[in-house]
């Protein structure tokens, strides 16, 4: 059947400028290539994570092609589209990707908003998708964690549920805990899950939960409410920059209770944004790049990344010690593609059902972010509590160092 692609259709005013400029593609062995696609925030003010997973995915593809591809067939990122974190654009991009019947596997966008917007559509389509970064549990388990997952949706991100369990362990020593969370899906569910975990751990736990808008400049109202509730420790669920604002705000208010953070706190914006104040902060993030020695897959990825991009703002300035956050920002894209490649190889087929079946049979796959990835038909979230580490920020000389505490 003759189908007119959108390329030839939405011609109007921009046709002249656009024609003939489509992105360069690997053209060798067309019929044989195995194609993957994704949409993510690649440009604009929110592109940090989208650009990261793109780099990770590219490294995975280069690596497998260098090793001869999948059973001799080359691998290609055939559709890489930019949604700038706008949900509508993610939907449009994903439709276009799904339209390309040659695409056999997908990676989810960078962020919960766009991912939630496209995930129903991908589920209906049936092709496998792996989520690298978005933390909302309902992406995989729309009806609750005790119900079956979406059949074709898998996740290696720092899932809210797992992070909450880890945080609850760290916070179990306090009776009264304040929680400040960003007013996003991630923040709201995170706070609910931590509350539930903490109350399960100790009956007498008292929690006071406050929300803030991302990039708010002042958190005094939240902090004094937490202080008035007599909190012995404070947990911040949100981005690094916001955590920095909160830490500085605490200093101004002379609030000196222990501060706990989520993965966002183990990032440059917090560590540099809060300066010396970070000392003593404990936060949860991937253990992968924090353990010494790193597990082999993590070390290999760090070497591959450094060889290609050098010690840039994702990797950090120290060649021997990449940022802990490299796991979440870049390596998760690498793992997603490797998992898809591995599944296609084991399935020996590119039919969606076969790949999904193979993904469901993934056992102890050595990932860079998660040392051992296992999926089963019921278990589509790879992360386990032991894959996360609690880091304590210390000062050595004039550098901040992260000590993996457990």
């Amino acid at each position: 059947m003759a189908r007119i692609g959108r390329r030839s259709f939405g011609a109007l005013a921009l046709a002249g400028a656009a024609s003939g400029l489509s992105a360069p593609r690997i053209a060798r062995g067309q019929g044989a290539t195995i194609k993957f696609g994704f949409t993510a925030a690649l440009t604009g003010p929110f592109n940090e994570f989208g650009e990261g997973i793109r780099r990770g995915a590219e490294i995975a593809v280069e690596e497998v092609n260098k090793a001869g591809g999948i059973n001799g067939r080359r691998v290609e990122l055939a559709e890489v589209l930019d949604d700038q974190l706008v949900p509508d654009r993610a939907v449009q991009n994903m439709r276009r990707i799904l339209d390309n019947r040659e695409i056999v596997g997908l990676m989810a966008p960078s962020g919960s908003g766009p991912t939630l917007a496209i995930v129903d559509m991908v589920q209906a389509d049936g092709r496998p998708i792996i989520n690298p970064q978005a933390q909302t549990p309902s992406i995989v388990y729309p009806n609750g964690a005790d119900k079956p997952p979406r059949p074709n949706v898998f996740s290696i991100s720092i899932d809210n549920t797992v992070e909450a369990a880890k945080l609850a362990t760290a916070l179990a020593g306090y009776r009264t805990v304040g929680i400040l969370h960003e007013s996003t899906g991630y923040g709201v569910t995170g706070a609910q899950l931590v509350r539930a975990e903490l109350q399960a751990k100790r009956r007498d736990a008292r929690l006071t939960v406050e929300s803030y808008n991302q990039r708010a400049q002042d958190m005094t109202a939240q902090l004094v409410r937490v202080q008035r509730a007599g909190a012995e420790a404070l947990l911040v669920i949100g981005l690094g920059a916001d955590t920095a604002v909160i830490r500085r705000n605490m200093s101004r208010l002379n609030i000196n209770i222990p501060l706990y953070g989520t993965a966002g706190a183990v990032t440059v914006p917090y560590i540099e944004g809060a300066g010396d104040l970070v000392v003593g902060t404990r936060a949860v993030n991937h253990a992968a790049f924090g353990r010494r020695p790193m597990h082999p897959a993590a070390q290999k990825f760090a070497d591959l990344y450094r060889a290609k991009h050098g010690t840039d703002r994702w990797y950090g300035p120290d060649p021997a010690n990449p940022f802990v956050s490299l796991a979440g920002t870049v390596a998760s894209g690498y793992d997603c593609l490797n998992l898809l490649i591995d599944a296609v190889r084991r399935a020996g087929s590119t039919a969606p059902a076969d790949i999904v079946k193979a993904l469901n049979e993934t056992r102890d796959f050595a990932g860079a972010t998660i040392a051992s990835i296992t999926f089963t038909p019921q278990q589509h979230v790879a992360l386990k509590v032991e894959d996360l580490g609690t880091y304590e920020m210390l000062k050595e000389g004039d550098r901040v160092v992260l000590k993996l505490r457990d």
Partner: protein
Amino acid sequence: MSRLRSALSRTVAHPAFHLALVLALLLGCRWLSAGTVQILTFALIAIIFSQSINLLTGLAGQISLGHAGFFGIGAYCSGILAKTHGVDVALSVPLAALLAAAAGWLLSFPAGRVRDVYLAMMTLGFGMIFYEIVREWNDVTGGTMGFPGVPSAALHTLSILGVRIDAAAYFQVVLLVAALVLVLVRNLTQSRIGRAFFAIHVSEVAAGSIGIPAGATKQLAYTLSGALAGLAGGLYAHLVGYLGPESFALPRSIEVLVIAIVGGLGSIAGQVLSATVFTFLPERLQVFSEYQFIAYGVILTFSLVVLPRGIAGLLLDPPRFIKPRALRRAVALRPDPAVLRPEAAGGGDGGSLEVASVTMRFGGLVALDDVSLRVEPGRITALVGPNGSGKSTLVNVVSGLYRPSAGRITFEGRDITGLPDHRIAAARVVRTFQDPRLVPHFTVRENLLLGAHRLLRHTGAAAALALPSALEEEAQQLAAIEAVLALTNLTVVADRTISTLPYGTRRMAEVGRALLARPRAILLDEPAAGLSEAEMERLAQVIRDMKAMGLAILLIDHHMDFLADLVDDVVVLDSGRVIYRGGIAEMRRDPAVIAAYLGDEAATASEHAHA
């Protein structure tokens, strides 16, 4: 270029073109890829949404930076009704439009009090509050986690009236809805409602002076605009199937405003083109890869430098605001001079305009101090006085712009003190302004038809559907306009836009417009200012004709020569007080007038004589 533009405009306006386009898309969508169909559906929704802004901002001149609020109300309403309560989409989407219309109507009350930047800020506030409410109202909207699983074509869960709808069928439904919306909006634009929107856009005061109520007109504009935005939102909900608060935040309000402005405010075709371009733009910009975001910004930054009047201004002739069918009907009718004949009833004796002891204070300043005067039907009363003596203030008080601090104004025995301006016009007291306040991009004919706004009684529905009865009524007024055009010597320029005409012609058009409001009393505020000798003579003749029609005429002017052989009575104001009342010949000899006024006026008059 202009010939090309005209050809293009004619094509774009031709019903056959519309029909062909709709049919082609209707049938052709089965051969398009799913992605193309989906993005075309997005474009159609953007088209409906941009018409909503066009109606409010382009026509009625009320800017909105919070339109995502209406869009969101529609989307959540239809989504929640369909998913949670199992309401059929054929009902939930209209209900969504209705709810958004109600929201628009409510917003019109606070918003009607402010304009320009202030209005932008207020609507911005509306949008932000909506966004915060959606995020915090977890039980209903799903809060920040969003609202998934709305019956939608993309998820194969949509059925309308029991019929399963796939993505292509949904596109066809939305296409028909959009086509219907465009037809209705086009009809409205070319009706008394659309013209009234433009009238309040240009000048609320002038609109009121010919009986167009600014408040009610704005309420209508907000309500209709809300309904269209809600409709677009409802359709959107069943396109994407997932509603998250981020989809209804400020960027969406901005995006639709950008579409409307770049398309060319006021032009329907411009909006259609612009909405299509901007929907496809992000995808087209993928070729700029890492510079995509920057490229989008650059396009917005320079859009006005490149396209000062939007896409429509570049590609199309300016739209017209009278239905061609009404015009054709009017041609069949003959010019109807009834408008120029004295009326039998009501305009008889006792029908005078009486100002009794009116005082007007602004703070400590007394602009009018116990002013009384009487304007008789069939007589021309001149109101003269030095600058700042309160002449214009008196006209403003009589025409309802100011409520007097004390005193009474009656017309034909009826108390009209403090009535709003459009009610005073409805009582058939009509005014003109020192500076002609016409709609600059309307033709003379369209401006004159505005004058007859009050007499067009057909409903909004009749206007939107362009029912024959509505067109007939319009045609009759157009026939009356022919007569007024002939009287005011404007027939040759009837179809030129006001902005292209010289000042004197505009003045005359304004007088003509006032005539079409069928006044029985007319207040002419310095109608001769800036006119040439020939134009002044013409004006004097028109005023005499008005006198012959039995109108009560109050004429403010400085030119004594102009007034001398025209007026019956003179009232002289000085510092807000009446210092003389009587004939013009005696006025020249009145010592009080000479002292207060004629001294410097006589001096300037003699200077004129020397010049």
